[in-house]
């Protein structure tokens, strides 16, 4: 067992070296090798046997998975992030009382929350929140994610965009960029309902474009119904105020039929 452990630790050291050099291909290969060799240890979940080496093996396995998570962020691979994170979770929950807590735990949890927010899986976001102990909310990384979600829900998008500057961890920047894109779409959607028209300068400022050209491209691709006339962007008002003299006959027929049916049932 010890021999295997030594091998794995050495491979892991090589992985760390490659990671710091930003050599992601070597990292990925080494990682798959490491994962395979990890399956030989029986002290890891789901088996969780009590071998004499258990503590060290568990700690090592957890470190490997944490690095895997960071790697997937650097390579911008959301699926592998999800996979690695779900493999990492049992280490935080089930064996947390056996091995010393990891310093990377809170940043990684925050990263996961951010990912769920970006992918708009708000229900899972809240479910994950419930699992966190109450003192975790004081931690900076997690607080950041929670406040972000709040601002997003309220609609204070400028706060979201400003938070980009105050990331607690450098790995957050990838998700923040994705978030910025989502936010931009949201702002555009809100603006077209809220404003009748807006000057080009203001629109550009709100949508966080750096030049007019980008704005025009964006409008052409995503929002064809907007018109630019003389330095002012006109949002096409959807004809919501149709006097609508027609009666929704089908709906009324359905309703009346159901009433008749139910009344007949009353004995």
């Amino acid at each position: 067992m010890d021999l295997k452990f030594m091998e794995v630790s050495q491979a892991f050291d090589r992985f760390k070296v490659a990671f710091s050099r930003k050599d992601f291909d070597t990292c990925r290969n080494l990682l798959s090798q490491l994962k395979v060799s990890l399956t030989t240890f029986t002290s890891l979940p789901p088996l969780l046997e009590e071998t004499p080496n258990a503590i060290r093996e568990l700690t090592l396995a957890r470190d490997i998975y944490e690095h895997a998570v960071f790697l997937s962020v650097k390579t911008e691979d959301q699926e592998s992030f999800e996979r690695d994170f779900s493999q990492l979770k049992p280490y935080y929950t089930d064996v947390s009382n056996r091995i010393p807590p990891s310093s990377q735990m809170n940043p990684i949890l925050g990263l996961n929350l951010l990912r769920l927010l970006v992918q708009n899986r708000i229900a899972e976001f809240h479910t994950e929140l419930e699992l966190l102990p109450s003192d975790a909310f004081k931690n900076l990384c997690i607080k950041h994610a929670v406040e972000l979600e709040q601002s997003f829900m309220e609609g204070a998008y400028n706060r979201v965009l400003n938070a980009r500057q105050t990331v607690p961890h450098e790995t957050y920047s990838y998700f923040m960029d994705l978030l910025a894109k989502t936010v931009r779409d949201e702002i555009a959607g809100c603006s077209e309902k809220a404003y009748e028209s807006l000057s080009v300068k203001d629109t550009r400022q709100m949508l966080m474009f750096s030049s007019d050209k980008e704005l025009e491209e964006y409008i052409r691709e995503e929002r064809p119904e907007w018109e630019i006339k003389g330095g002012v962007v006109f949002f096409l008002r959807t004809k919501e105020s149709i006097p609508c003299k027609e009666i929704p006959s089908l709906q009324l027929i359905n309703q009346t039929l159901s009433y008749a049916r139910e009344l007949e049932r009353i004995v």
Partner: protein
Amino acid sequence: MEKVRHFSVLGDPCQNLQSPNQILTKMTQDIEMKEQLVAHSDSISSVSPSTLQHLMDIYGLIEIGAYAREVRRIVRAIRWTIQLRKKLSATVISSFLDFALVPGSEIHSRLSSYLPKATNPGDKHDMEVDTATSAIQTPAKISPEIEIYCYLLVLIFLIDEKKYNEAKACSTASIARMKSFNRRTVDILASRLYFYYSLSYELTGHLAEIRGNLLMLHRTATLRHDELGQETLLNLLLRNYLHYNLYDQAEKLRSRAPRFEAHSNQQFCRYLFYLGKIRTIQLEYTDAKESLLQAARKAPMSALGFRVQCTKWAVIVRLLLGEIPERTVFMQKGMEKTLHPYFELTNAVRIGDLELFKAVADKFSDTFSADRTNNLIIRLRHNVIRTGLRNISISYSRISLADIARKLRLDSSNPVADAESIVAKAIRDGAVDATLDHANGWMVSKETGDIYSTTEPQIAFNSRIAFCLNMHNEAVRALRFPPNSHKEKESAEKRRERQQQEQELAKHIAEEDEDDF
């Protein structure tokens, strides 16, 4: 059935009896009881002998039920036991165990070891009674129902005495014993046993240990089509998961478990409550509100604590949906004090004042964390802002964004820009009917048109009608009719009557005909 004992025919466990010896005499039973009532107007005998008597009545009832495979009797036996709960004491139980189980058998010794030794001087009277009862013949073979019943009795007693560790040991032993039985009559007792098993572990804080066991028991219950057991176990499992905040797993279990018509009202209420909690966390507020309100309605009036919990969650869900619960909700009997924090919270949301909301949330933060509703309260902040905005847009036809920010008391570095984006989102979500003017920096509210000229009233009426009709259908379905056995007997009698009448009528007609002739 060769039973020497004659269990009380009158069936009323509340009468006072002198000594259990008398139950041996079949003939004089009723007469003697009446004599006792006359002679001893106030009970000289302590409560314990009659408790023992009741336990033996229950024993007899279970025996009959087991023999005749009638589940109803076992249910009645359990009901009597619950009534007796407060009067149980260690000596009573040990004497009952002596009576029901063969002394010296493995079960007897195990169960007796859980009971504390009786040191009560007031129980001396029982000692005499004990010697009397030991003269009674005990049955040679012990039916499984009696065994499980004894376990149940000891377990209830231990939990009431707050001896949780012994209760834990006892319940584990009983579950191990129970797996070998597969009878419908045992199932009722079994479901009670599961409940106390889970309770004893919860009270000692080791709820996570039994999760695997509960899952296995649930599988077995499903295989045997034991619906009451399935229901109970599902609820216990959900409670287990929710205790540790594992909402994801709870939902996965709930969505995959087989569903059927509820057998027990209490289990159904519990199920609705857990379902409501899961839905709330998953942001499906409409479903959650329905489940929670239904659970609060269906719960029996005596279950005050349960109804308070349901009401608390229902209040929060309604706030999250944007509707304000009425004051009467908080003024229900017995709930006023516990619901007070939620009342203040509702007030803050109704006014739409963020600072007041924050003050209330901080003031009662311990209550909220004890109720585990802390995260939900955080979500309410968004609603407070919305309500505030809505109030503003209704009252003003035109208001500047800086004023909005000041009124909403948004504490941020750039209030105007924040307010602008918040208002824009509110407009898009349809909460506020207005337009923004960026150049001048103000919000212009739209004219509210005449609602009656649209189909809005029809839609509102339709939803109310559907609700009433639904309620009516559910009530009809919940009606209970008397069991069929009575019907058959009656129809036999009625048939005879009818035949008699027909005969008379025929005779009458024949006589008339004769007269006519």
